[in-house]
């Protein structure tokens, strides 16, 4: 697609998004999420409130203190369970994934364990979330229901009106349900002409266009609550995250060094020893000792040693490229272009990275692209692929697409999982979209500095 056509598409896309919104998949999922969340939120809140209040009250007294504490802990556990339920709903319906809060230490002894549970931030945050969600959820769901009901009601108004006017011919049925402009018995205007009915139907249009955005707004509010109340963006969990990714980085580095050592040992070293052997034999054939001189055989051996040395040099060159490809010195555009050109599957590439990221990010991006393109060649059976690199909001965004058979997934211990871990160590992200039957799109996001 030409650049101009792409730009035109980009200009039109917000308008297209608005028009498509009412019938888009996302809208239905969000409505479902809000509707499902309402009873769940209510039930969860009550299930937590009762033992929490009872526990708090009992703990204040001397006699029931232990029982009170038990009730509090039970309430917190229920809250954590409810929190997981909402996490699951969020990740399933509105594609919001939240980091798992790490479990705190268990504590020893009965009192120790109870204390650990009481101190567990997750429980209290879940209680706060449930409490905040109640008004948000109920008002929000109410609003969404209202807007959609009105929109659908207006859309089908002529039908109601038709039925209503026929009804109204019977004198004792003066106001039918739908001769008024609202589904509810109170208020509203009277529509007396067929033309008016159609005008009402037209009113449905703006409501329909508005409805999904109301939903988005409510979901956005809930997502904010999920991200900032239910999960903690606190320093402690960030530190834990960094510790994990540092461990991954160290393991990764050690594994890479071991691979290099193996490649050197099995490849270059073995070859060089074999060549030394061949030359040793050749020397004998040239009369180094008193054994017979055999120049023809010596020539053969020297030829064989020569060929072996050339292969050793090329193996070492490949190994060096695996450690640091020289082409990266010129920047990502050149390096990615070379990668694309070397692939067996034709790869269309588009690289637009005006600023150079730091060297380590460049290397990670290059090796990610290399592995992803190699996967396209090895597993996808695709006939065409695309490699794009852009700067998006101060992040380097690498996208590899192919029209192959799909089914790519980050299986534990597999290549994509390893790639994801390496990307995580620099706070990047890996998104895989690969339904069976294809096409596959994999997006790698990396910060500009590690």
């Amino acid at each position, binding site marked *: 697609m030409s650049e101009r056509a792409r730009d035109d598409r980009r200009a039109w896309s917000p308008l297209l998004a608005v028009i498509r919104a009412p019938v888009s998949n996302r809208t239905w999922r969000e409505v479902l999420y809000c509707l499902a969340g309402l009873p769940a939120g209510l039930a969860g809140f009550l299930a937590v409130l009762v033992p929490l209040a009872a526990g708090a009250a009992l703990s204040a007294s001397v006699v029931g203190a232990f029982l009170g504490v038990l009730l509090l802990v039970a309430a917190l556990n229920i809250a954590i369970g409810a929190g997981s339920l909402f996490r699951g709903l969020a990740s399933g319906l509105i594609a919001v994934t939240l980091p798992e809060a790490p479990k705190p230490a268990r504590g020893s002894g009965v009192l120790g364990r109870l204390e650990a549970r009481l101190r567990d931030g997750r429980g209290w945050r879940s209680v706060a979330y449930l409490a905040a969600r109640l008004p948000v959820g109920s008002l929000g769901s109410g609003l969404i229901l209202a807007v959609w009901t009105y929109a659908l009601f207006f859309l089908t108004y002529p039908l109601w009106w038709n039925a209503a006017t026929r009804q109204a011919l019977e004198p004792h049925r003066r106001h039918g349900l739908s001769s008024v402009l609202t589904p509810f018995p109170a208020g509203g205007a009277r529509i007396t002409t067929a033309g008016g009915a159609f005008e009402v139907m037209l009113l449905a249009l703006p409501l329909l266009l508005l409805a999904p955005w109301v939903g988005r707004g409510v979901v956005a509010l809930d997502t904010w609550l999920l991200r900032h109340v239910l999960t903690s963006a606190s320093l402690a969990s960030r530190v834990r995250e960094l510790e994990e990714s540092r461990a991954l980085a160290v393991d990764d580095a050690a594994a890479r060094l071991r691979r290099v050592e193996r490649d050197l*040992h*099995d490849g270059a070293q073995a070859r060089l020893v*074999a060549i*030394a052997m061949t030359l040793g*034999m050749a020397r*004998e054939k040239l009369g180094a000792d008193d054994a017979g001189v055999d120049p023809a055989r010596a020539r053969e051996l020297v030829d064989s040693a020569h060929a072996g040395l050339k292969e050793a040099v090329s193996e070492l060159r490949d190994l060096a490229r695996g450690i640091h490809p020289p082409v990266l010195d010129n920047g990502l555009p050149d390096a990615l272009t070379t990668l694309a050109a070397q692939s067996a599957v034709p790869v269309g590439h588009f690289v637009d990275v005006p600023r150079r990221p730091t060297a380590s990010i460049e290397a990670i991006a290059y090796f990610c692209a290399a592995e992803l393109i190699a996967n396209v060649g090895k597993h996808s059976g695709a006939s065409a692929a695309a490699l794009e690199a852009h700067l998006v909001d101060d992040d380097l965004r690498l996208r590899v697409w192919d029209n192959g058979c799909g089914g790519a997934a980050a299986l534990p211990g597999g290549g994509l999982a390893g790639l994801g871990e390496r990307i995580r160590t620099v706070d990047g992200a890996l998104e895989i979209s690969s339904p069976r039957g294809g096409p596959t799109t994999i997006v790698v996001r990396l910060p500009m500095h590690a």
Partner: protein
Amino acid sequence: MRVVIAEDSAVLREGLVQLLADRGHEVCAAVADAGSLVAAVREERPDVAVVDIRMPPTHTDEGLRAALELRSEFPETGVLVFSQYIETRYAARLLERNAAGVGYLLKDRVADVADFTAALERVAAGGTALDPEVVRQLLAVRGAVSGLAALTARERDVLALMAEGRSNTAIAAALVITDGAVEKHVASIFGKLGLEKSGSDNRRVLAVLQYFNR
């Protein structure tokens, strides 16, 4: 001499086969992993097996374990183990019970074709072949502690060659001295270090190694 080779690097394996064939030895089998090695030795009953320590699947010490198995199951077959790096504990394990028909060489040693084939023939005949590098490390590490200071430079050379498993004649050839001179040095060494007189060359190796492992 009939030989079985176990080496996972194809390049090196082919080179060894060629080398031995060139010298007129018969390579009955050339395999790439420990399991096939034991099976091949069982079937072919060669004079000596050449075994790489690092082989699939884990590339740690499959070859060594196979070598120990061969030593106990087929004592008439010599086993020459070789590896890229010196691992003195592997040498110790190999020589644990007896030093007859055992060898441990660095892969680099293969480049010296004459030395390599001599070592191989020694092992096939029931002798010992320790890599000079192993011996050097042993002597360097322990030398200061033990009574090496008492030996003359010439005696230290003889000791090193003895520890490699060479016979008196071979030592004489290597140092360009007479057989008689070698015998005198050997007797002197045994006296100074307090080693007991042992009959065969491989028992000598054991004696020397045991001395250094005290």
